Protein backbone atom coordinates (compact mmCIF):
# COMPACT_ATOMS: atom_id res chain seq x y z
CA UNK A 1 0.00 0.00 0.00
CA UNK A 2 1.20 3.50 -0.79
CA UNK A 3 3.27 5.17 1.91
CA UNK A 4 1.81 8.52 2.92
CA UNK A 5 4.31 11.37 3.14
CA UNK A 6 3.65 14.53 5.16
CA UNK A 7 5.92 17.45 4.37
CA UNK A 8 7.60 19.23 7.28
CA UNK A 9 9.02 22.73 6.65
CA UNK A 10 11.45 24.25 9.12
CA UNK A 11 12.67 27.54 7.74
CA UNK A 12 14.35 26.63 4.48
CA UNK A 13 14.77 22.97 5.44
CA UNK A 14 12.35 20.37 4.12
CA UNK A 15 11.76 16.92 5.47
CA UNK A 16 8.94 14.40 5.29
CA UNK A 17 7.26 12.03 7.69
CA UNK A 18 6.52 8.63 6.16
CA UNK A 19 3.26 7.09 7.41
CA UNK A 20 3.51 9.25 10.55
CA UNK A 21 6.80 7.53 11.34
CA UNK A 22 10.39 8.57 11.16
CA UNK A 23 11.34 11.85 9.52
CA UNK A 24 13.07 11.71 6.16
CA UNK A 25 15.35 14.70 5.51
CA UNK A 26 14.88 15.99 1.96
CA UNK A 27 16.96 19.12 1.52
CA UNK A 28 16.93 22.87 1.67
CA UNK A 29 15.15 25.45 -0.42
CA UNK A 30 17.75 27.16 -2.56
CA UNK A 31 17.72 30.07 -4.96
CA UNK A 32 19.39 29.75 -8.31
CA UNK A 33 20.13 32.95 -10.21
CA UNK A 34 20.36 32.47 -13.94
CA UNK A 35 23.03 34.94 -15.07
CA UNK A 36 21.93 34.74 -18.68
CA UNK A 37 18.26 35.51 -18.15
CA UNK A 38 18.48 37.30 -14.81
CA UNK A 39 15.66 35.13 -13.50
CA UNK A 40 15.68 33.62 -10.03
CA UNK A 41 14.55 30.04 -9.67
CA UNK A 42 13.78 28.12 -6.50
CA UNK A 43 14.06 24.47 -5.71
CA UNK A 44 15.41 21.83 -3.37
CA UNK A 45 18.98 20.70 -2.96
CA UNK A 46 20.75 18.36 -0.59
CA UNK A 47 24.28 19.05 -1.82
CA UNK A 48 26.74 19.29 1.03
CA UNK A 49 26.64 23.06 1.71
CA UNK A 50 22.85 23.12 1.89
CA UNK A 51 22.01 19.89 3.60
CA UNK A 52 21.25 20.13 7.29
CA UNK A 53 21.87 16.50 8.17
CA UNK A 54 24.32 13.80 7.23
CA UNK A 55 21.57 11.84 5.47
CA UNK A 56 22.87 12.30 1.93
CA UNK A 57 26.37 11.36 3.03
CA UNK A 58 25.06 8.18 4.66
CA UNK A 59 24.43 6.63 1.27
CA UNK A 60 27.63 7.24 -0.63
CA UNK A 61 28.62 5.41 -3.78
CA UNK A 62 31.85 3.52 -3.21
CA UNK A 63 33.47 1.44 -5.94
CA UNK A 64 34.45 -1.28 -3.50
CA UNK A 65 30.78 -2.05 -2.80
CA UNK A 66 30.03 -2.77 -6.47
CA UNK A 67 33.29 -4.17 -7.84
CA UNK A 68 31.98 -7.70 -7.43
CA UNK A 69 29.29 -7.03 -10.01
CA UNK A 70 30.68 -4.26 -12.20
CA UNK A 71 34.40 -4.96 -11.93
CA UNK A 72 36.50 -2.17 -13.52
CA UNK A 73 33.46 -0.06 -14.34
CA UNK A 74 32.73 0.34 -10.63
CA UNK A 75 36.07 2.16 -10.32
CA UNK A 76 35.70 3.95 -13.63
CA UNK A 77 32.56 5.82 -12.56
CA UNK A 78 33.80 6.67 -9.05
CA UNK A 79 35.65 9.94 -9.85
CA UNK A 80 32.59 11.32 -11.64
CA UNK A 81 30.36 10.11 -8.79
CA UNK A 82 32.57 11.99 -6.33
CA UNK A 83 32.35 15.14 -8.44
CA UNK A 84 28.56 14.83 -8.54
CA UNK A 85 28.28 14.57 -4.75
CA UNK A 86 28.76 10.80 -4.46
CA UNK A 87 25.40 10.34 -2.76
CA UNK A 88 22.76 7.91 -3.97
CA UNK A 89 20.30 10.47 -2.58
CA UNK A 90 21.71 13.53 -4.29
CA UNK A 91 18.90 15.88 -5.29
CA UNK A 92 18.38 19.18 -7.02
CA UNK A 93 15.17 20.61 -8.38
CA UNK A 94 16.08 24.21 -9.20
CA UNK A 95 17.65 24.16 -12.65
CA UNK A 96 16.30 23.61 -16.12
CA UNK A 97 16.20 19.83 -15.64
CA UNK A 98 13.58 20.56 -12.92
CA UNK A 99 14.46 17.28 -11.20
CA UNK A 100 17.88 15.67 -10.88
CA UNK A 101 18.57 12.66 -8.70
CA UNK A 102 21.29 10.25 -7.66
CA UNK A 103 25.07 10.16 -7.67
CA UNK A 104 25.03 10.29 -11.45
CA UNK A 105 22.86 13.43 -11.38
CA UNK A 106 20.30 11.81 -13.66
CA UNK A 107 18.36 14.72 -15.13
CA UNK A 108 14.67 14.60 -16.04
CA UNK A 109 14.69 17.00 -18.99
CA UNK A 110 16.28 14.76 -21.63
CA UNK A 111 13.95 12.51 -23.67
CA UNK A 112 15.11 8.91 -23.34
CA UNK A 113 17.94 10.29 -21.19
CA UNK A 114 19.52 8.84 -18.08
CA UNK A 115 16.77 9.88 -15.62
CA UNK A 116 13.96 8.59 -17.82
CA UNK A 117 15.66 5.26 -18.47
CA UNK A 118 16.49 4.80 -14.77
CA UNK A 119 13.03 5.83 -13.61
CA UNK A 120 11.36 3.42 -16.03
CA UNK A 121 13.31 0.59 -14.42
CA UNK A 122 12.51 1.86 -10.92
CA UNK A 123 8.83 1.69 -11.85
CA UNK A 124 9.25 -2.02 -12.67
CA UNK A 125 10.42 -2.77 -9.14
CA UNK A 126 7.81 -4.20 -6.76
CA UNK A 127 8.16 -1.32 -4.28
CA UNK A 128 6.57 0.99 -6.85
CA UNK A 129 3.17 0.51 -5.21
CA UNK A 130 4.56 2.05 -2.03
CA UNK A 131 5.82 5.15 -3.79
CA UNK A 132 4.27 5.84 -7.19
CA UNK A 133 1.17 3.63 -7.44
CA UNK A 134 -0.28 5.79 -10.22
CA UNK A 135 2.75 5.52 -12.50
CA UNK A 136 3.41 2.64 -14.88
CA UNK A 137 5.50 1.80 -17.90
CA UNK A 138 3.33 0.98 -20.90
CA UNK A 139 4.71 0.35 -24.34
CA UNK A 140 8.13 1.33 -23.00
CA UNK A 141 6.98 4.78 -21.82
CA UNK A 142 6.10 6.19 -18.40
CA UNK A 143 2.40 6.90 -18.04
CA UNK A 144 0.24 8.26 -15.25
CA UNK A 145 -2.90 6.21 -14.69
CA UNK A 146 -5.96 8.03 -13.41
CA UNK A 147 -9.50 6.68 -13.39
CA UNK A 148 -8.38 3.91 -15.71
CA UNK A 149 -6.92 6.29 -18.28
CA UNK A 150 -3.22 6.41 -19.02
CA UNK A 151 -1.66 9.80 -19.72
CA UNK A 152 1.84 9.70 -21.23
CA UNK A 153 4.49 11.49 -19.18
CA UNK A 154 7.30 11.17 -21.69
CA UNK A 155 7.92 10.52 -25.36
CA UNK A 156 10.82 10.44 -27.80
CA UNK A 157 10.61 14.21 -28.12
CA UNK A 158 9.63 15.52 -24.66
CA UNK A 159 9.66 14.84 -20.93
CA UNK A 160 7.71 17.96 -20.04
CA UNK A 161 4.74 16.15 -18.45
CA UNK A 162 7.15 14.11 -16.32
CA UNK A 163 9.04 17.24 -15.30
CA UNK A 164 5.78 18.94 -14.33
CA UNK A 165 4.67 15.85 -12.42
CA UNK A 166 7.87 15.86 -10.38
CA UNK A 167 8.24 19.61 -10.05
CA UNK A 168 5.30 21.81 -11.08
CA UNK A 169 7.17 25.14 -11.15
CA UNK A 170 10.57 26.68 -10.59
CA UNK A 171 8.98 29.67 -8.85
CA UNK A 172 8.72 28.01 -5.44
CA UNK A 173 9.08 24.67 -3.70
CA UNK A 174 5.71 22.97 -4.02
CA UNK A 175 4.40 20.05 -1.97
CA UNK A 176 4.36 17.86 -5.08
CA UNK A 177 8.04 18.54 -5.63
CA UNK A 178 8.97 17.85 -1.99
CA UNK A 179 6.88 14.68 -1.91
CA UNK A 180 8.41 13.33 -5.13
CA UNK A 181 11.85 14.01 -3.66
CA UNK A 182 10.92 12.38 -0.34
CA UNK A 183 9.64 9.29 -2.15
CA UNK A 184 12.81 8.80 -4.17
CA UNK A 185 15.03 9.40 -1.13
CA UNK A 186 13.02 7.01 1.06
CA UNK A 187 12.89 4.37 -1.69
CA UNK A 188 16.61 4.57 -2.46
CA UNK A 189 17.56 4.61 1.19
CA UNK A 190 15.51 1.58 2.09
CA UNK A 191 16.18 -0.77 -0.80
CA UNK A 192 19.65 -2.00 -1.81
CA UNK A 193 18.18 -3.11 -5.14
CA UNK A 194 17.24 0.48 -5.92
CA UNK A 195 20.83 1.54 -5.28
CA UNK A 196 22.12 -1.33 -7.40
CA UNK A 197 19.87 -0.11 -10.21
CA UNK A 198 21.32 3.40 -9.94
CA UNK A 199 24.83 1.97 -10.26
CA UNK A 200 23.76 -0.11 -13.24
CA UNK A 201 22.42 2.94 -15.02
CA UNK A 202 25.49 5.02 -14.26
CA UNK A 203 27.68 2.25 -15.66
CA UNK A 204 25.47 2.09 -18.77
CA UNK A 205 25.74 5.86 -19.16
CA UNK A 206 29.52 5.77 -18.80
CA UNK A 207 29.79 2.90 -21.26
CA UNK A 208 27.70 4.78 -23.82
CA UNK A 209 29.78 7.94 -23.37
CA UNK A 210 33.05 6.04 -23.84
CA UNK A 211 31.75 4.34 -26.97
CA UNK A 212 30.60 7.65 -28.40
CA UNK A 213 33.89 9.33 -27.54
CA UNK A 214 35.77 6.43 -29.12
CA UNK A 215 33.85 6.92 -32.36
CA UNK A 216 34.52 10.66 -32.33
CA UNK A 217 38.00 10.83 -30.84
CA UNK A 218 39.56 7.42 -31.31
CA UNK A 219 40.17 6.06 -27.84
CA UNK A 220 41.24 2.58 -28.93
CA UNK A 221 44.28 1.63 -26.84
CA UNK A 222 44.01 4.65 -24.58
CA UNK A 223 44.35 4.13 -20.85
CA UNK A 224 41.40 3.99 -18.50
CA UNK A 225 42.62 7.16 -16.78
CA UNK A 226 42.44 9.12 -20.04
CA UNK A 227 39.03 7.65 -20.89
CA UNK A 228 37.76 8.42 -17.40
CA UNK A 229 38.53 12.14 -17.74
CA UNK A 230 37.00 12.20 -21.23
CA UNK A 231 33.87 10.53 -19.86
CA UNK A 232 33.63 13.02 -17.02
CA UNK A 233 33.89 15.98 -19.40
CA UNK A 234 31.17 14.53 -21.63
CA UNK A 235 28.96 13.57 -18.68
CA UNK A 236 29.04 17.09 -17.31
CA UNK A 237 28.99 18.60 -20.80
CA UNK A 238 31.68 21.14 -20.01
CA UNK A 239 33.41 20.86 -23.39
CA UNK A 240 32.91 19.53 -26.88
CA UNK A 241 34.85 17.00 -28.91
CA UNK A 242 37.08 19.63 -30.54
CA UNK A 243 38.58 20.65 -27.19
CA UNK A 244 38.95 17.04 -26.16
CA UNK A 245 40.65 16.20 -29.46
CA UNK A 246 43.13 19.02 -28.94
CA UNK A 247 43.90 17.82 -25.42
CA UNK A 248 44.38 14.24 -26.59
CA UNK A 249 46.89 15.49 -29.17
CA UNK A 250 48.91 17.38 -26.53
CA UNK A 251 52.34 16.08 -25.43
CA UNK A 252 50.87 15.24 -22.03
CA UNK A 253 47.27 14.30 -22.85
CA UNK A 254 46.16 13.32 -19.34
CA UNK A 255 47.25 16.63 -17.88
CA UNK A 256 45.77 18.53 -20.82
CA UNK A 257 42.45 16.74 -20.47
CA UNK A 258 42.30 17.68 -16.80
CA UNK A 259 42.43 21.34 -17.82
CA UNK A 260 39.52 21.07 -20.27
CA UNK A 261 36.66 23.28 -19.09
CA UNK A 262 38.61 24.73 -16.18
CA UNK A 263 37.60 28.31 -17.01
CA UNK A 264 33.88 27.64 -16.83
CA UNK A 265 33.96 24.93 -14.16
CA UNK A 266 36.99 25.48 -11.92
CA UNK A 267 35.42 23.77 -8.91
CA UNK A 268 34.48 20.67 -10.84
CA UNK A 269 37.91 20.38 -12.39
CA UNK A 270 39.58 20.76 -9.00
CA UNK A 271 37.37 18.02 -7.56
CA UNK A 272 38.15 15.74 -10.47
CA UNK A 273 41.89 16.27 -10.09
CA UNK A 274 41.63 15.41 -6.42
CA UNK A 275 39.49 12.34 -7.09
CA UNK A 276 41.86 11.11 -9.80
CA UNK A 277 45.01 11.58 -7.73
CA UNK A 278 44.68 8.33 -5.80
CA UNK A 279 42.80 6.45 -8.50
CA UNK A 280 44.74 7.19 -11.66
CA UNK A 281 47.19 4.30 -11.44
CA UNK A 282 44.45 1.69 -11.06
CA UNK A 283 42.45 3.17 -13.93
CA UNK A 284 45.50 3.36 -16.18
CA UNK A 285 46.14 -0.35 -15.67
CA UNK A 286 43.54 -1.12 -18.34
CA UNK A 287 43.08 0.23 -21.85
CA UNK A 288 39.98 0.69 -23.95
CA UNK A 289 39.59 -1.86 -26.73
CA UNK A 290 37.34 -0.91 -29.61
CA UNK A 291 37.21 -4.53 -30.76
CA UNK A 292 36.11 -5.81 -27.36
CA UNK A 293 34.10 -2.68 -26.51
CA UNK A 294 35.60 -3.04 -23.07
CA UNK A 295 38.59 -2.14 -20.93
CA UNK A 296 41.13 -4.93 -21.13
Amino acid at each position, binding site marked *: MAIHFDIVRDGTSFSARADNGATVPIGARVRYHNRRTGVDRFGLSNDAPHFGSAEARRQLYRATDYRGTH*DFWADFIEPTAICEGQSFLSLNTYDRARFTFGFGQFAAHVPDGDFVRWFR*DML*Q*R*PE*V*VDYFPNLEV*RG*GRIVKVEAGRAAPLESASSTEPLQLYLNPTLDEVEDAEAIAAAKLIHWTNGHPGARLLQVQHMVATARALVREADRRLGLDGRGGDICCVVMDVRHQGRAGFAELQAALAAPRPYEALLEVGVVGEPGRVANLKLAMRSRRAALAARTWSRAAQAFI
Partner: protein
Amino acid sequence: MPFVDDLIAIARRESLRWGGPAERLDGSLVGFAYPRMENKAPYWGYVGDYWQAVGSGLDGRDAPAWSAAFISYCFKEAGAGARFPYDQNHSKYAAAIGSGSFAGLSLEDPATTVLAPGDLIWASRTGDDCRTPPATFAAAKAELRRIFQGRADTFCSHSDIVVAVRGGEVDVIGGNVKQAVTRTTYKLDGAGRISDGRRNFIGVIRDTLL
Protein backbone atom coordinates in the same frame (compact mmCIF):
# COMPACT_ATOMS: atom_id res chain seq x y z
CA MET B 1 19.75 -34.77 -24.91
CA PRO B 2 19.51 -33.63 -21.24
CA PHE B 3 16.19 -32.13 -20.21
CA VAL B 4 17.61 -28.64 -19.69
CA ASP B 5 18.77 -28.59 -23.31
CA ASP B 6 15.25 -29.44 -24.44
CA LEU B 7 13.82 -26.77 -22.15
CA ILE B 8 16.18 -24.13 -23.51
CA ALA B 9 15.46 -25.19 -27.09
CA ILE B 10 11.72 -24.76 -26.47
CA ALA B 11 12.21 -21.34 -24.86
CA ARG B 12 14.36 -20.23 -27.80
CA ARG B 13 11.82 -21.61 -30.28
CA GLU B 14 9.09 -19.55 -28.63
CA SER B 15 11.28 -16.47 -28.59
CA LEU B 16 11.78 -16.89 -32.33
CA ARG B 17 8.02 -17.33 -32.89
CA TRP B 18 7.66 -13.83 -31.45
CA GLY B 19 10.42 -12.49 -33.66
CA GLY B 20 13.07 -12.43 -30.94
CA PRO B 21 12.18 -9.30 -28.94
CA ALA B 22 14.86 -8.53 -26.38
CA GLU B 23 15.76 -6.22 -23.55
CA ARG B 24 19.49 -5.69 -23.50
CA LEU B 25 21.70 -5.25 -20.49
CA ASP B 26 21.51 -1.47 -20.82
CA GLY B 27 17.72 -1.64 -20.80
CA SER B 28 17.30 -0.87 -24.49
CA LEU B 29 14.57 -2.76 -26.30
CA VAL B 30 14.97 -4.38 -29.71
CA GLY B 31 12.79 -6.53 -31.93
CA PHE B 32 9.35 -5.57 -30.65
CA ALA B 33 7.01 -5.47 -33.64
CA TYR B 34 4.39 -3.56 -31.62
CA PRO B 35 4.29 -1.92 -28.19
CA ARG B 36 1.79 -4.56 -27.01
CA MET B 37 2.51 -7.60 -29.14
CA GLU B 38 0.27 -9.89 -27.06
CA ASN B 39 -2.80 -8.08 -28.40
CA LYS B 40 -1.93 -8.67 -32.05
CA ALA B 41 -2.37 -11.69 -34.30
CA PRO B 42 -0.73 -14.14 -34.50
CA TYR B 43 0.82 -13.53 -31.09
CA TRP B 44 -2.34 -13.77 -28.99
CA GLY B 45 -2.80 -17.20 -30.52
CA TYR B 46 0.57 -18.27 -29.11
CA VAL B 47 -0.58 -17.09 -25.69
CA GLY B 48 -3.61 -19.32 -26.16
CA ASP B 49 -1.20 -22.25 -26.65
CA TYR B 50 0.45 -21.42 -23.34
CA TRP B 51 -2.89 -21.36 -21.53
CA GLN B 52 -3.62 -24.88 -22.75
CA ALA B 53 -0.53 -26.10 -20.90
CA VAL B 54 -2.25 -25.29 -17.60
CA GLY B 55 -5.61 -26.66 -18.69
CA SER B 56 -7.14 -23.24 -19.24
CA GLY B 57 -9.65 -22.50 -21.93
CA LEU B 58 -8.40 -18.95 -22.38
CA ASP B 59 -7.53 -18.22 -25.97
CA GLY B 60 -4.93 -15.48 -25.43
CA ARG B 61 -7.19 -12.47 -25.89
CA ASP B 62 -7.75 -12.28 -22.17
CA ALA B 63 -6.51 -10.15 -19.33
CA PRO B 64 -4.80 -12.56 -16.90
CA ALA B 65 -1.02 -12.53 -16.62
CA TRP B 66 0.29 -15.42 -18.69
CA SER B 67 3.94 -15.66 -17.66
CA ALA B 68 3.44 -18.76 -15.47
CA ALA B 69 1.43 -20.40 -18.24
CA PHE B 70 4.44 -19.77 -20.50
CA ILE B 71 6.81 -21.49 -18.04
CA SER B 72 4.41 -24.40 -17.74
CA TYR B 73 4.14 -24.64 -21.53
CA CYS B 74 7.92 -24.77 -21.93
CA PHE B 75 8.29 -27.55 -19.34
CA LYS B 76 5.43 -29.52 -20.89
CA GLU B 77 6.77 -29.15 -24.43
CA ALA B 78 10.24 -30.14 -23.24
CA GLY B 79 8.81 -33.40 -21.89
CA ALA B 80 8.79 -32.80 -18.15
CA GLY B 81 5.55 -34.76 -17.85
CA ALA B 82 4.54 -35.22 -14.22
CA ARG B 83 7.90 -33.95 -13.02
CA PHE B 84 6.77 -30.28 -13.04
CA PRO B 85 3.85 -28.82 -11.03
CA TYR B 86 2.13 -26.92 -13.84
CA ASP B 87 0.22 -23.87 -12.70
CA GLN B 88 -0.87 -20.47 -13.93
CA ASN B 89 0.64 -18.81 -10.84
CA HIS B 90 4.38 -18.81 -10.21
CA SER B 91 3.99 -18.88 -6.44
CA LYS B 92 1.85 -22.03 -6.69
CA TYR B 93 4.37 -24.08 -8.65
CA ALA B 94 7.22 -22.58 -6.60
CA ALA B 95 5.40 -23.67 -3.43
CA ALA B 96 5.11 -27.21 -4.77
CA ILE B 97 8.79 -27.28 -5.71
CA GLY B 98 9.78 -25.69 -2.38
CA SER B 99 7.98 -28.51 -0.57
CA GLY B 100 10.57 -30.92 -1.91
CA SER B 101 8.02 -33.04 -3.75
CA PHE B 102 9.57 -32.67 -7.18
CA ALA B 103 12.87 -34.45 -7.60
CA GLY B 104 15.30 -32.58 -9.84
CA LEU B 105 13.79 -29.19 -8.98
CA SER B 106 14.71 -27.22 -5.89
CA LEU B 107 14.23 -23.72 -4.55
CA GLU B 108 17.48 -21.86 -3.88
CA ASP B 109 18.60 -18.50 -2.54
CA PRO B 110 19.51 -16.11 -5.39
CA ALA B 111 22.12 -14.44 -3.18
CA THR B 112 24.16 -17.64 -2.99
CA THR B 113 23.26 -19.54 -6.15
CA VAL B 114 25.47 -19.55 -9.22
CA LEU B 115 23.08 -19.61 -12.16
CA ALA B 116 23.13 -22.40 -14.72
CA PRO B 117 21.25 -22.86 -17.99
CA GLY B 118 17.82 -24.34 -17.41
CA ASP B 119 17.33 -22.68 -14.02
CA LEU B 120 14.40 -20.36 -13.38
CA ILE B 121 15.06 -16.97 -11.84
CA TRP B 122 12.09 -15.86 -9.80
CA ALA B 123 11.25 -12.25 -8.90
CA SER B 124 8.44 -10.61 -6.97
CA ARG B 125 6.21 -8.14 -8.72
CA THR B 126 3.18 -6.02 -8.12
CA GLY B 127 0.11 -5.28 -10.19
CA ASP B 128 -3.64 -4.93 -10.08
CA ASP B 129 -5.16 -7.12 -7.37
CA CYS B 130 -1.74 -8.21 -6.12
CA ARG B 131 -1.08 -8.39 -2.40
CA THR B 132 2.28 -7.19 -1.09
CA PRO B 133 4.81 -9.78 -2.27
CA PRO B 134 7.68 -11.07 -0.14
CA ALA B 135 10.85 -9.04 -0.61
CA THR B 136 13.47 -11.61 0.36
CA PHE B 137 14.23 -15.28 -0.18
CA ALA B 138 13.57 -16.06 3.49
CA ALA B 139 10.20 -14.29 3.39
CA ALA B 140 9.32 -15.97 0.09
CA LYS B 141 10.11 -19.41 1.50
CA ALA B 142 7.91 -18.76 4.50
CA GLU B 143 5.08 -17.57 2.25
CA LEU B 144 5.45 -20.59 -0.02
CA ARG B 145 5.10 -22.91 2.97
CA ARG B 146 1.86 -21.18 3.92
CA ILE B 147 0.59 -21.34 0.34
CA PHE B 148 1.48 -25.04 0.09
CA GLN B 149 -0.39 -25.71 3.34
CA GLY B 150 -3.40 -23.77 2.07
CA ARG B 151 -2.99 -21.11 4.75
CA ALA B 152 -2.23 -18.18 2.43
CA ASP B 153 -3.26 -16.83 -0.94
CA THR B 154 -0.86 -16.72 -3.82
CA PHE B 155 1.11 -13.58 -4.60
CA CYS B 156 2.25 -11.97 -7.85
CA SER B 157 5.66 -12.87 -9.16
CA HIS B 158 7.49 -13.70 -12.35
CA SER B 159 9.96 -16.30 -13.59
CA ASP B 160 12.23 -16.54 -16.59
CA ILE B 161 14.18 -19.48 -17.97
CA VAL B 162 17.97 -19.14 -18.01
CA VAL B 163 19.08 -19.90 -21.58
CA ALA B 164 22.70 -18.73 -21.55
CA VAL B 165 25.32 -17.76 -18.99
CA ARG B 166 28.53 -15.93 -19.85
CA GLY B 167 31.00 -13.73 -18.03
CA GLY B 168 28.99 -11.27 -15.97
CA GLU B 169 25.76 -11.71 -17.91
CA VAL B 170 22.84 -14.09 -18.17
CA ASP B 171 20.23 -14.38 -20.91
CA VAL B 172 16.76 -15.42 -19.83
CA ILE B 173 13.53 -15.93 -21.74
CA GLY B 174 10.14 -15.29 -20.20
CA GLY B 175 6.55 -14.76 -21.21
CA ASN B 176 4.45 -11.65 -20.63
CA VAL B 177 7.62 -9.55 -20.38
CA LYS B 178 6.91 -6.20 -22.01
CA GLN B 179 3.76 -7.86 -23.41
CA ALA B 180 5.72 -10.46 -25.39
CA VAL B 181 8.00 -13.48 -25.06
CA THR B 182 11.16 -11.56 -24.38
CA ARG B 183 14.80 -12.42 -24.01
CA THR B 184 16.30 -10.30 -21.24
CA THR B 185 19.96 -9.92 -20.39
CA TYR B 186 20.68 -9.46 -16.69
CA LYS B 187 23.87 -8.68 -14.82
CA LEU B 188 25.69 -11.31 -12.80
CA ASP B 189 28.31 -10.74 -10.16
CA GLY B 190 31.83 -12.11 -10.54
CA ALA B 191 30.76 -15.44 -9.06
CA GLY B 192 27.83 -15.88 -11.45
CA ARG B 193 25.00 -14.91 -9.09
CA ILE B 194 22.21 -12.63 -10.23
CA SER B 195 22.99 -8.99 -9.39
CA ASP B 196 20.61 -6.76 -11.30
CA GLY B 197 18.47 -3.97 -9.87
CA ARG B 198 15.74 -4.14 -12.50
CA ARG B 199 13.89 -6.79 -10.56
CA ASN B 200 13.71 -7.97 -6.97
CA PHE B 201 14.83 -11.58 -7.22
CA ILE B 202 13.48 -13.79 -4.45
CA GLY B 203 14.48 -17.24 -5.62
CA VAL B 204 16.17 -19.51 -8.10
CA ILE B 205 14.59 -22.79 -9.13
CA ARG B 206 17.48 -25.10 -9.77
CA ASP B 207 16.66 -27.48 -12.59
CA THR B 208 18.61 -30.74 -12.66
CA LEU B 209 15.95 -32.82 -14.38
CA LEU B 210 17.41 -35.49 -16.63
